[in-house]
């Protein structure tokens, strides 16, 4: 047998909620910007430069002991954390982060390499394999100099701006400018709220986060386009229907699809979040958050803004005084 997740004829007055939701979105955006300004972002080495080394953590290795051994190396800020490892089994790994080395500009890159190698050699020497322990093993390492990290950051920001601009143009070409403005407002809303969450929870913000943001833009756009398509279609059928009812009608018509697609996407993302290991955890978190926010924004931000803008996209709609009462055209 099968289930219906949404009743056949939903008739929910979404647009009645447009002012409270507008207030909520504004609070969310202001809070996000406030967090980004005060707390900043926990930038990963992609954007800040520095090194990350991941190792196994045999049972006989104590994190305090590792801290003591590495602090003696005099490499500036060295952070050591435990994390859940990749893989289906429950393993613990050590994550060592080394900040960008303090050296003359020409020598930073070489100093960073040397610091990474020194930490690796120190760890391998301090915890060798013995009869009772498998010994510490290096799983991965990465080191990025300030030259590259600066470029990666600029490229990331450029990618976001280019994506938003192209979406704006595409929608303006396929629909009217009001739709385009509504859609891009929704996307910007999603991006700001996602960056805000990363700042609030101090999650690592790196290249894969930018990839996630772009995917969120794509997803949210997808959602918005489906709603707008329906709005345009219904506006041709029901030429006399008032704007607010028209938008509500379109939203209800696509509600079942909106929820179904969100749920299947969330199910798939949940699988990555739980099973995909540490590399994909941040990315899948961003995507899960983005799907939720994106679904919300295509209903409340994009559609509300469309209502607030001039309605000259409704060709053939009679002026208000001509309309005696609402009559369905069919």
């Amino acid at each position, binding site marked *: 047998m099968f289930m219906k997740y949404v009743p056949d004829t939903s008739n929910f007055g979404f647009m009645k909620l447009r002012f409270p939701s507008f207030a909520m979105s504004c609070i969310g955006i202001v809070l996000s910007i406030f967090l980004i300004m005060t707390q900043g972002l926990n930038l990963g080495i992609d954007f800040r430069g520095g090194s990350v080394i991941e190792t196994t953590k045999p049972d006989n290795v104590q994190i305090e002991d590792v801290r003591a051994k590495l602090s003696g190396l005099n490499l500036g800020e060295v952070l050591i954390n435990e994390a859940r490892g990749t893989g289906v089994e429950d393993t613990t790994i050590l994550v060592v982060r080394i900040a960008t080395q303090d050296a003359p500009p020409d020598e930073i890159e070489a100093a960073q390499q040397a610091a990474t190698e020194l930490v690796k050699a120190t760890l391998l020497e301090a915890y060798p394999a013995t009869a009772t322990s498998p010994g510490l093993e290096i799983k991965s390492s990465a080191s990025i100099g300030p030259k590259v990290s600066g470029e990666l950051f600029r490229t990331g920001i450029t990618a976001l701006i280019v994506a938003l601009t192209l979406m704006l143009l595409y929608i303006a070409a*396929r629909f009217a400018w009001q739709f385009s403005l509504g859609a891009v407002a929704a996307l910007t809303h999603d991006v700001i709220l996602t960056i805000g969450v990363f700042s609030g929870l101090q999650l690592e913000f790196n290249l894969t986060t930018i990839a996630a943001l772009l995917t969120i833009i794509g997803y949210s756009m997808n959602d918005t386009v489906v709603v707008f398509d329906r709005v345009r279609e219904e506006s041709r059928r029901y030429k006399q229907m008032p704007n607010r009812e028209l938008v509500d009608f379109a939203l209800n018509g696509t509600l079942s699809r909106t929820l179904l697609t969100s749920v299947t996407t969330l199910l798939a993302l949940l699988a990555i979040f739980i099973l995909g290991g540490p590399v994909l955890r941040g990315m899948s978190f961003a995507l899960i958050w983005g799907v939720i926010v994106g679904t919300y924004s295509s209903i409340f931000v994009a559609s509300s803004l469309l209502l607030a803008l001039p309605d000259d996209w409704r060709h053939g709609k009679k002026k208000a005084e001509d309309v005696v009462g609402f009559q369905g055209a069919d």
Partner: protein
Amino acid sequence: MLHFSKWKVLGIVLVLVWGALLAFPNAVSNGFLGVKPDTPISQSADDLAKFRAQQEAAEGAWWPGFLPENKVNLGLDLQGGVYLLIEFAEDEVVANRMEIARRDVTEALAARGGRPAIFSTREPNEDTGQLEIRLKTPAELREAMRRLDDANPPVEGTISGAKTFDIEDRGGGLITMDMTTASRDALVSDSQGKIIEIIRRRIDPDGVKEISIQPQGENRIVLEAPGVDDPKTLTRPLEEAGRMTFNIVDSSETGLTAALNGLVRPGYKLVEDSQGFPYLINVSPIVTGSDIATANPGFDAQDNSRTVDFRLSGSGAKRFGDATVKYIDRQFAIVLDDLVMSAPVIREPIYGGSVQISGGGFTEERARELAAIIEAGELPAKLEVIQERTVTASLGEDSIRAGTAASIIGLILVAVFMILAYSRLGIFAVGSLMINIILILGALSGIGATLTLPGIAGIILTIGMAVDANVLVFERVREETRAGRGAMTAVQAGYEKALGTILDANITTFIAAAILYVLGSGPVSGFAVTLAIGIVTSVFTAFVVTRWFTSIWLHWAKPKKLKL
């Protein structure tokens, strides 16, 4: 919309079979496909045994050669390996070229035909790098410009005929000389190619390793070495400039003592060996690295030590031979990057060009490394590693396992949900979802794209989003059914009405993926590739394959009304 002509059906079947064939190699071993294994990097007994077993399996394979045999390329984050981004200083390359220009200028403006030299100084400006030439008298400007112009060849390989240098009269007998943009660009790009070749010969002298070295931008090089766990084995051979020279040594007591007291004879230079022992060497070398034809690690049976043996090229051997006649009983030094490797005394003339560095106390590994560095030649500029990423093979395997588990669980969750939501149509959608994944794998293998861990995330995300197109259609079908239409017309209308929306929605996501691909690097562009491929295949499977399934079922079962 529900009528499929024979040709259309044939087309669909062909695409599906082709996709399945492309994806198939991923499901079986290389031995089954008859693909010969790569030569192992390590020579351990285990690896060699594995290599032989794979080779035998490959020889006995029946899989025909004309069918696809490429698996998906795994990124370094999945198979383990080292990624290096290397940069060289353009300014250093240009400065070296200007140094040669300085020598040419000296020659061009030197005394000629009874006329004395017409310049007083020709030194590079420290800030701009330009060569500033001062003439003895401004009156000689015309003659100087004429001679400099003769020494200013056009840039090689350009059609425009741009000159190598901008030569300008600054007035008052001052002439400046600088590289033109065209010649500078040509030089930098030429150096990039040279450096790639030198890097390859240094880290993979036998050309057996599966290492990719690619240019990036103007002054960068990307090096990817799968299966390597320790980046040091790659970066160490790149640290040395590799400037190899043979120089005559002034071994007189007085010369050395004076030099140690700060009075170095003109034309000589003080260098040391690895023990810190000083040598006073003549700066103009007898032969240089470019005269060396081959270099190999060797073994000295007399004292069981490692050596580096090399052979000079024809002209180098002749020059060296002549020098050994001229400087018999004197000492000469083999100098690598200002470090004396060996300083033998010439006992007899040496012709034939065979030279050996011994007594250096080399390990076997160091001797091999030195031979590779000497044979590869001198780097045109110092190299700097500006980004390094290493993933061990075991972490790569863990990631593959994690990615596979996440994909399977994700697929099952989505499948159950879809079947619960749309019953029979849901089953069709899940069927086309499976086909979708096979097509993505087939496309990735077919175009030789690289699958990274974020790429796997892209596939899983596609699994979630691919059903969207189906959902859009099914919701329309539901509406039409509620409006009282029969099964056939409802499905027909559903597909017709959903098409525009599906295209609009997917084109926007595709734009996002394309931007990611253009601007992203490494793992991120891997994500973009799978996302983009996933969008194309999911539109195809949802709109064509599911529709075909549905149409077959409708024609076969002939339901009056759909239960939705």
